[in-house]
């Protein structure tokens, strides 16, 4: 049998294969190295970086729900400077595409963060997390308002020459409208979905389990919502998609690619199976091989035919 070409080209971002790991679930690339060599992966996305260091939320930060996980880490991170000083040098040495995820609380935050990363920084792309509250405008998340989302992406576009991945929030009425907004703003790629806002209450203590009360839902439970959104966005925009949300097996990865994702990202599944990305990659390759595809890119969007 002939080999399947697993490489993926996405407007300016070339990946060895379509398997990426998700922001906030893969630390700064070191933690999982003992299990899963970064050189096997299409890319890794680092924890969301903000301009200043953040302690994040108090614990408990985690709660399990049926086939899902709620987290309220609250963007704990060393801040831009700390990241560049303590983590970036090791990251750029990794034999994989490194995607830096940035999060801000104002347009200026995003401009500042974006300007710190350029084509010569040794990273492959910037992922822009627009799910954070816009503190200058009543705390409404950038990612729930098309104009704000477009504005954020546009300012990032102005400040970096790296490929930009706009990461959409699923907590919206109309994901297509959001996708079109970030496309207009100049995004090269769209990634989705971020977590869904959820809550879990302990019947013993009669209080929310998370110290922060609400948190983001991820894991297999959210997969049908994520697949639907990828499917919808694929029909609406011309830029490629990185699909994520509950992917834990190769079948799940294929599902997202059939829906229209050019690459997929693995988050929560790493916690259960630290070699999930490699298992998924192997399964994906076999799937393509058994069905006679020369390149994995051929399966992207197939579910839209007829």
């Amino acid at each position, binding site marked *: 049998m002939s080999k399947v070409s697993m490489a993926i080209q996405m407007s300016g971002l070339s990946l060895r294969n379509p398997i990426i790991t998700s922001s*906030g*679930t*893969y*630390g700064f690339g070191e*933690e*999982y190295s*003992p*299990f899963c060599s970064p050189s096997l992966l299409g890319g890794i996305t680092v*924890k969301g970086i903000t301009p200043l260091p953040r*302690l*994040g939320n*108090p*614990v*408990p*930060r*985690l*709660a*399990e729900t*049926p*086939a*899902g*996980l709620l*987290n309220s*880490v609250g963007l*704990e991170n060393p801040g831009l400077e700390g990241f560049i000083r303590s983590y970036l040098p090791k990251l750029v040495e990794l034999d994989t595409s490194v995607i830096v995820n940035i999060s801000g609380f104002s347009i200026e935050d995003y401009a500042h963060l974006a300007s710190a990363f350029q084509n010569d920084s040794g990273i492959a792309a910037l992922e822009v997390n627009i799910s954070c509250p816009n503190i200058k405008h009543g705390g409404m998340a950038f990612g729930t308002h098309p104009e704000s989302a477009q504005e954020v992406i546009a300012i990032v576009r102005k400040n970096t020459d790296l490929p930009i991945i706009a990461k959409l929030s699923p907590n919206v009425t109309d994901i297509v409208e959001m996708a079109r907004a970030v496309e207009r703003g100049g995004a090269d790629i769209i990634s989705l979905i971020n977590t869904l806002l959820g809550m879990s209450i302990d019947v013993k203590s009669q209080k929310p389990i998370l110290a922060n009360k609400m948190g983001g839902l991820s*894991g*297999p*439970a959210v997969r049908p919502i994520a697949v639907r959104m990828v499917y919808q966005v694929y029909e609406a925009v011309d830029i490629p998609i990185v699909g994520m949300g509950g992917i*834990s097996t190769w079948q799940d990865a294929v599902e997202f690619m059939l829906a229209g994702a050019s690459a997929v990202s693995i988050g*929560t599944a*790493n*916690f*259960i*199976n*630290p*070699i999930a990305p490699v298992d998924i990659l192997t399964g994906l390759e076999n799937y393509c091989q058994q069905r006679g595809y020369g390149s994995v890119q051929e399966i992207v969007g197939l579910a839209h035919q007829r």
Partner: protein
Amino acid sequence: MVMILKERVIENRIMGDPIQMLYKMVISGQAAQTATPGQFVHLQVADSNEPLLRRPLSIAGIDKNTEEVTIYYKVIGKGTELLTRIKENEYISVLGPLGTGFTVPDSGELLLVAGGIGIFPLLSLIQAVDKEKVKLKLLWGGENKQFIESAGLIDIEKMGVNLDMSTLDGSLGTKGLVTDLLESYLGDNTDTIAKPKDNGKQNLRVATCGPKGMLQAVTKICLGHNVPVEVSLEERMACGIGACLGCVCTVKDLEGNLKRKRVCKEGPVMDGKEVVWDE
């Protein structure tokens, strides 16, 4: 080295009084090779999404010759209930050994303070300490006699540990809390306790594990007596290896700055002095 392996369960049985729901599990495999006292393993309890996450359990016994680790667990929810169903010779996915364990002293005196099932991680420390060189003493508080006996009292006595116990109902040892035992022990042993300016002469150390409130109280008492204390913390965990930041604990550094440490990575054993208890 941290590994993820399918390891064979060679023993998995209930201990003592069934009402206590305490189990012992022995796992054969490579985790034993590099494990140190106070570390833990992260076990996959289900082959479905329920529960979704692995479960962290302390390594209570390490046998590098037979390549076995022993864990003790109490059934409290779905995950630990599923653990009980694993039969001997079945395989389980083990991620570990994980985390940073206890300091193992090679001289002086080590005082262990255990609350309830907090005894389990301390067992690996009892096992590791050279009892010829280090004076070992265990203070153990529990609900009642049935609990303490079921949790392995006889085995602990067999290890030759000097042991004082307390129970809430007085059915074994002193009636009261383990912190009462600690208070009077430290009061009676002021000679082994380092004085404020006595750097380097501290020959008494405390290692403790139990409910959070107890750890806080133990830490306060120890620091009051100027005795260094290591606490083994628990926190809900997802990854278990430092990647998700789900399990943090707040610490205060020497300059008074608040910082987060990961219970799964820099912990579960932390210097009691730096832990911020009431955040």
